[in-house]
């Protein structure tokens, strides 16, 4: 079942004195299945936030329709089981983290005892249990992002929409957020998040949609998009001598010597196989062997070359 669905969703902004048209979103069709992590990926200005704002009822579509759990987004009822993390900063600075969570819980009709219990649990879960009684004004960027995430989860929602959940976080923070998203899927929730960082999506998403210039240019399972085909193999070897290395590097697309270590890259698996066998025969060590698949990054670059970026 599609939890989030859009048909021909479009947004035209009119800006400035001349009311110049900006077509931010151009007929987007999305289908997000229940229980999946869905990445909404695109460069800056692609229309991610505009699409998400239409899904959450903050701006009205110029054309097209959208549903959450089969309820049109124009009906506030569709937001009863929705958690939302907006982009950037959006806090009542004068509230403490706990009060902030409590207030949003009230708007979702959660009773007081449950609100308090969940606020405590969530502060723990997002890693800021100590900050619950501090004013948000005094939070760091990372703490804000975390309390924002807790806010999105206060009602134990079935659908979670996150706009750039990892932006502004250090590597550890990004990992925490990735783990959080994965644990949400484990609980059977559907997570829809936007990002312009491909790595984030590649690691955790089931499906992705790539939006460029207001258009969806790719949509589907990561594996289908990238293909299973291996585009190359990278080997790092140790304990072999220079003559052997000279022999092995024939046909390699890359061959580098780093002190005792040798790095070789091949386009085909057969060559890699041959090098592997020869190294083991010579009592050398294989430090690593990494098959290289096409990455989302490559896909992005291809789209850019096709002129999909304006």
């Amino acid at each position, binding site marked *: 079942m599609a939890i989030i669905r859009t048909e021909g969703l479009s947004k035209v902004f009119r800006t400035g004195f001349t009311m110049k048209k900006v077509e931010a979103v151009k007929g987007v069709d999305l289908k997000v299945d229940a229980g999946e992590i869905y990445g909404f990926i695109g460069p800056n200005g692609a229309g991610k936030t505009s699409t998400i704002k239409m899904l959450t009822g903050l701006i009205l579509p110029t054309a097209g329709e959208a549903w959450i759990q089969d309820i049109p987004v124009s009906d506030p009822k569709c937001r009863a089981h929705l958690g*939302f993390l907006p982009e950037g900063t959006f806090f009542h600075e004068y509230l403490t983290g706990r009060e902030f969570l409590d207030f949003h819980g009230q708007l979702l009709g959660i009773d007081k005892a449950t609100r308090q219990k969940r606020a405590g649990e969530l502060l723990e879960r997002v890693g800021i249990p100590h900050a619950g009684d501090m004013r948000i004004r005094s939070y760091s960027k990372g703490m804000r992002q975390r309390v924002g995430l807790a806010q999105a989860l206060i009602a134990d929602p079935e659908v979670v929409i996150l706009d750039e959940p990892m932006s502004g976080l250090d590597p550890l923070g990004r990992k925490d957020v990735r783990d959080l998203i994965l644990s949400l899927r484990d609980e059977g929730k559907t997570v829809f998040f936007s990002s312009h960082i491909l790595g984030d999506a590649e690691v955790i998403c089931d499906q992705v949609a790539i939006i460029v210039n207001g258009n969806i240019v790719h949509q589907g399972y990561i594996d289908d998009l990238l293909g299973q085909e291996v585009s190359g193999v990278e080997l790092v070897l140790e304990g072999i001598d220079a003559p052997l290395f000279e022999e092995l590097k024939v046909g390699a697309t890359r061959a580098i010597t780093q002190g005792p270590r040798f790095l070789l890259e091949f386009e085909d698996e057969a060559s890699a196989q041959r090098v592997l066998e020869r190294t083991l025969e010579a009592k050398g060590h294989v430090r690593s062997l990494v098959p290289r698949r096409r990455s989302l990054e490559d896909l992005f670059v291809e789209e850019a070359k096709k002129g999909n970026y304006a």
Partner: protein
Amino acid sequence: MRALRNIKAVAMNTYREAVREKLLYTLLMFAGLMIASSIVLVKIHLGYDERIYYDVGLAAIALFGSLIAIFVGINLVYREINSKTIYTMLAKPMRRWEFLIGKYLGLVGLLALEIVLMSALFLAVVWFQKGTFPAELLYAIVLIFVELVLLTAIAIFFSSFTTPYLAGMFTVSLWIIGHLLADIREFGNLPDSEAIRPLTEALYWGLPNLDRLDIKGLAADGIPITLKDLWMNIAYGLSYASLLLFSATQLFRVRDFR
């Protein structure tokens, strides 16, 4: 049920903001100072004259309340949009009108508190001087509150579709004109003003007539005010405010938050 719950949550949060951002205390301190100083000034310059005494006290309450209603009112919704705090609030099972009414009632509650405290101070001073106070003073204070309820609605109405700056200009204009409507009408009724009479009549009947809610002069003069008149004027103020709020929610419903 759900609507009430949401309105209450938003109103309470508005109140909490005023308390936390020290707005409330600042206001109360100023209000107290204003009443105290106006009374002291009158006393020094004019001795104890009941009429002027009442006039100045009521005027201080009304003026101060009006300034809060207008200048807090025009920023009320804008602040939530500008700081993006409205995003997570509206992404809830809450209708936009519930949010708007919640903000409105939060400020009205604040104004009520303000009026109660200022009036208590004023009436206490009168009581201290006279040993009693006329009921008309209370009536006048009730109508001042109704005026603030209406002014806040005007401010919210304008700020539901324009910037605080423009909303402020419009609201202040209506505040001033609203107190001059009786004069404007009289002007239109002069024999020479035949040509503009339709305009003055339209203004008189169309714009919010704040004069109707202003019985400060009467109260100070001790002219009796019938309860029927009082109720009529309260009903007028509240109906006009409801109309404005209804229009504001309609305008707010189709607005983009970006």
